[in-house]
């Protein structure tokens, strides 16, 4: 099956030409589209994780250090589809511990809104990783290495956490849009961990080229596209191919995603392989909406309210002050 139909040849990262592997997560008997028992979710993920990682295991087994990068940007409940389900990470770590001798870390980065340690704790990573020999690391605390990468003929300077530059990376995005509309995806998950003053649409491409993730695993067990939807599927492949699949599932066009368009270049349509995944049906089931609207009041509404309040002698609620 073909997930995209608007790309042609040439590869942007090492696996660009390879198909995306898909696996169904058995949710038979699951009520309400979500199982609140993380052990039950991890058990259901064991087989699909094994299937999608199998082609990458040789590469992963050769690594001394493995770093998993989930979408853990904020402590939204995993059943919303807005973050990677920690059960997916737990299942991947479990598989890697059985099949590799590498030191394994799960990584995120604190930002101006919230420390990733707090996010990881709320999402349950701290207790989850205690089961394994893995640790959760804050890349904001790590030393960095400077790199320059060429994107579309222009140099892009990046400051990259050493761990990402030096270890073998597995990026595990959720299936959701960004605030600006395009799919969040693997490339933007990596871009969020590097510093750069370059054009924001070039940074995801540059970050992906510099970090060179060994594989990307799209957590489509739950998707968010304006509403959550149980997808019960995993997709694995190169970062750009997986992002193309995610973009297609969320009803986005590659043409409107400058970063993805650049990364895919002339690579052909992405082929999705795997038993049991009805891609078209999945695409129909997953809504193609946006994030909820901001609570920030539109400036015109704030102005109108201030005029009304002045005329009527009413007070302006703090929420409608419009940043005054």
């Amino acid at each position: 099956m073909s997930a995209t139909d608007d790309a042609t040849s040439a590869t942007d990262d090492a696996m660009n030409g390879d198909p995306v592997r898909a696996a169904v997560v058995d949710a038979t008997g699951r009520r309400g589209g979500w199982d609140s028992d993380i052990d039950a979710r991890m058990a259901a993920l064991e087989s699909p994780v094994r299937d999608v990682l199998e082609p990458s295991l040789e590469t992963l087994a050769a690594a001394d250090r493995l770093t998993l990068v989930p979408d853990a940007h904020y402590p939204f409940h995993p059943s919303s589809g807005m973050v990677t389900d920690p059960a997916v990470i737990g299942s991947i770590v479990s598989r890697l511990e059985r099949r590799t001798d590498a030191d394994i870390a799960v990584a995120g980065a604190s930002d101006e809104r919230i420390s990733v340690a707090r996010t990881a704790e709320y999402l349950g990573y701290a207790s989850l990783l205690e089961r394994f020999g893995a640790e959760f690391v804050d890349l904001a605390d790590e030393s960095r290495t400077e790199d320059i990468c060429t994107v579309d003929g222009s140099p892009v300077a990046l400051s990259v956490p050493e761990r990402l530059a030096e270890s073998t990376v597995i990026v595990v995005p959720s299936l959701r849009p960004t605030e600006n509309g395009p799919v969040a995806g693997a490339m933007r998950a990596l871009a969020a961990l590097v510093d750069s003053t370059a054009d924001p649409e070039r940074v995801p491409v540059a970050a992906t080229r510099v970090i060179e993730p060994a594989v990307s695993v799209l957590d489509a067990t739950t998707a968010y596209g304006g509403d959550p939807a149980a997808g019960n599927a995993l997709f694995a492949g190169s970062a750009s191919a997986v992002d193309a699949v995610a973009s297609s599932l969320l009803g986005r066009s590659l043409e409107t995603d400058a970063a993805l368009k650049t990364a895919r270049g002339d690579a052909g349509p992405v082929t999705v392989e795997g038993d049991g995944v009805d891609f078209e049906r999945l695409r129909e089931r997953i809504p193609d909406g946006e994030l909820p609207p901001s609570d920030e009041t539109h400036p015109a509404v704030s102005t109108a309210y201030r005029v009304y309040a002045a005329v009527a002698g009413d007070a302006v609620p703090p929420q409608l002050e419009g940043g005054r």
Partner: protein
Amino acid sequence: MAPTPLLNRLTDSNALSLGILGVGNIGMVHLKSAAAMPGVTVVAAADAVPENRERAERAGASRTYDDYATLLNSEDLDAAVVALPPFLHGEAVERAAEAGVDVFVEKPLARTTDEADELLETARKAGIAIGVDHTLRYQPDMAGVKAAYDEGSVGHVPYASITRLNDGPLGRPPVENAPPSWPLDADAVGGGSLLELGVHCFDVLEWLFGDLRVRDASMGQTLEIDVEDAATVLMEAPETGTTITLHCGSYQWEQLPEVNTRLRLEGVTGTISNQDHLPRNFYAGAAKSALSNVASRLTRDEPDVFGPTFYLQAHYDALADFCDAIREDEQPPVDGADGRRTLALAERAYELAAETDEAADEIDGLETPEVTL
């Protein structure tokens, strides 16, 4: 310090001089309410955050302080609004008592009934009044339910239910502000959703049905946090013979102006729902209220402050009632005893939930999982 008679502390002009201790989200609502209130002067506000102090100054606070104790020592106040995190309520009331200033305390009154008892005793000794900001009973939909119930419009009510849900300190996407950590810190707040939202529900339920008895409860956490973000309580109201369930939680995304507050009274001849006492369309209701306020201005009547936003208007009305009571040397309509009562109900619910969990552990021979992600 000897207690000061209430009326002697009012200024000559009879305007109530008010200080606002804490001008974060709800503190700013109180400040703007007070600034628009006839017969009330906001003389000062205090907040540790410089941006909040700047907002307070723009909203009409004559002076601002980075420390509420300094404000209380420096200003000649009749009353103060305590809109600080719960772990500071006791200390703030103590400082207010030393200054002989009546207080309107944001809910929950305290983190525990023990802390509330200390706070109330401090107030009693100092002769200061305590009001508590329990606002559900001031909302027009709740007032509508009470009126219909008291008129006997559905006969005997064997069962009632109340639900209050929001998205708590973590909010929903898109994330616009850094979430404060104290609302999820059990030491700082004493509990989770039950103390944040449930106490409002207890207050409105006792207002409707009289004294409540908690029969059972269950607490839940949808994330691995320190406090519950979901609470369910089974109660009975002996006076009316009503069985009541309460569910509150901070796990549900909220998109203002819509708020998820549901109260249903199941009577013999029908149902009373708060939804029947709200505008069918928030914006149409807001526009109607705005037009009414503009018309009031033309006839020189006072506007309904925050008229287009009923849940903010409820905060205004609660503070206005408190200020009227202070001005008239009367007991605040929602006082410290009311605030303590809601804490006692919450504590009983916590105890019963813990007992239920322990019993389940004994039956299972396993620890009950605390987290259900």
